[in-house]
């Protein structure tokens, strides 16, 4: 096992009591500080994968290692402390009658002193910009606000790894952007992030690494350009090519982009590349009059 491996899944399979096999032979190593997007159709096993990584579900076969230690029934609580899940449906996560109490649930379960819990709750509320909402009951919050509460829930537990299950689903563009900024912030703090999503453009610009899960197994694992270069695989998983990658290919094929294979992640990066390319070209080009 590599030195910097944080979370390892070794030949993990999982099936529910009904016998339905959800995950088969998953091998995965996650290193500290990585930003990983998990793509794949609904029902492919992404949520189950997350529940396994957090220790709520136990693998039917194979094993999970955290910081090199094998996680079993006895120390599964350690896994829950170090890996936090933000569920897709905030309503299934929120249980308390007020925002402050809700966010305190996780830290209280960590058996921290009330002074520390209070400080963590305040910090979590500030990091999702929900100051002034402390006493609000969750049923008077909007969808986007509930999402932020569910993220603050996990921030207050200070885990090393954050698992986001489709965090942008059902959010308006403003809230989706807010969540993306939050992801940037957490990543800046050195946290390890896994985000399951259907948005290939987001995955392409945000992730350092992409996993494709389909029919219960890991079909691809690599950098975004490498994964999206495998066209047949993306077609099988019903994933379209990110718009920026298509534009880059198009520009390259028409010889409009000199700097080849640079894979700009954002429109701004592409613009910069185009500008640099043209700057290099212009002295040799025809004189402007």
């Amino acid at each position, binding site marked *: 096992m590599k030195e910097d491996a944080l979370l390892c899944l070794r030949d993990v399979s999982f099936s529910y009591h009904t016998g339905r096999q959800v995950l088969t032979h998953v091998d995965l190593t996650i290193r500290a500080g990585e930003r990983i997007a998990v793509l794949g159709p609904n029902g492919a096993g992404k949520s189950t994968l997350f*529940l396994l990584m957090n220790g709520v579900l136990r693998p039917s076969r194979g094993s999970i290692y955290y910081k090199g230690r094998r996680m079993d029934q006895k120390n599964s609580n350690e896994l829950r402390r170090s890996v936090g899940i933000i569920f897709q449906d905030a*309503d299934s996560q929120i*249980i308390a009658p007020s925002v*402050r109490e809700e966010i305190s*649930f*996780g*830290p*209280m379960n960590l058996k921290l002193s009330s002074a520390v819990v209070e400080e963590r*709750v305040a910090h979590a509320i500030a990091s999702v910009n929900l100051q002034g909402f402390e006493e609000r009951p*969750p049923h008077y919050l909007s969808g986007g606000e509930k999402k932020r509460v569910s993220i603050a829930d996990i921030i207050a537990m200070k885990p090393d790894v954050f698992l986001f299950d489709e965090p942008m689903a059902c959010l308006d563009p403003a809230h989706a952007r807010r969540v993306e900024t939050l992801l940037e912030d957490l990543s800046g703090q050195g946290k390890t992030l896994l985000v399951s999503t259907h948005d290939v453009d987001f995955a392409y610009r945000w992730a350092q690494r992409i996993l494709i899960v389909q029919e219960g197994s890991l079909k691809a694992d690599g950098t975004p350009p490498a994964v999206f270069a495998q066209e047949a695989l993306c077609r099988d998983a019903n994933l379209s090519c990110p718009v920026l990658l298509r534009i880059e290919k198009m520009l390259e094929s028409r010889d409009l982009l000199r700097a080849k294979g640079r894979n700009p992640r954002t429109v701004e990066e592409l613009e910069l590349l185009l500008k640099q390319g043209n700057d290099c070209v212009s002295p040799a080009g025809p004189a402007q009059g």
Partner: protein
Amino acid sequence: MGMEHYAYVSPLRHKNACLKTTFGITVLVCGLAMDSIAVSLWITVSMMGISVIWGKVRLYDYIRFLAMPLFFILFGGGALFFATEDMRLVLLVTLRAVGAVSAFYFLTLSTPVGELMAVLRKCHVPPVLIGLMYLLYRDIFVLTGVWQSMFTAAQSRLGYADYRTSLRTFGGIGSNLLLLSWKRADDCYHAMEARGYEGTICFLERRQSCRWYDVLAAAGYIAVMAAIRRFCG
């Protein structure tokens, strides 16, 4: 606005929840025990005053809230009158009931359910019960929301076109809601486990200071009750 909402926005919300609960229950019990028309009238009027003036509840809403129990109380009073033909007794029983409801409305309109549950926890009610209450309370709103959207969706597809169809739609929504809450229970349990739940639901306790003048005011109110009982009978 509903009662629930008033409790959240009430200026009285920030008063100590334990004090409010003790006060509300004491007034309720004393009002019943003192067995006096004057005391009951005092409770009814003053509680309305407190809720409307300090609690900022609209008078119209307060009367609307009171209308429902009042209907049953007056109904009972009427029945009692036909049985005993003792007008004083009828008046006494009716006013005591209205007074008791008013005392409880003070509590309901100033204290959100979550804070009441925190008070119960301080009174050493078993944690299992408190945990269940938290989950039930939360689920009321989630399931009502789901029901509301299913109702609208059914309505938009003529699900309530006539009596027979409405009955069928009602049954369909009911059974769907059961299945949904089943699934929700599963999801919710997973989410709680993921956050380290080990059998007891525990939240950060809110610290509410108990001001001396609030205690004094509560004691004064009860003293006035006793005085009315002593001098007006």
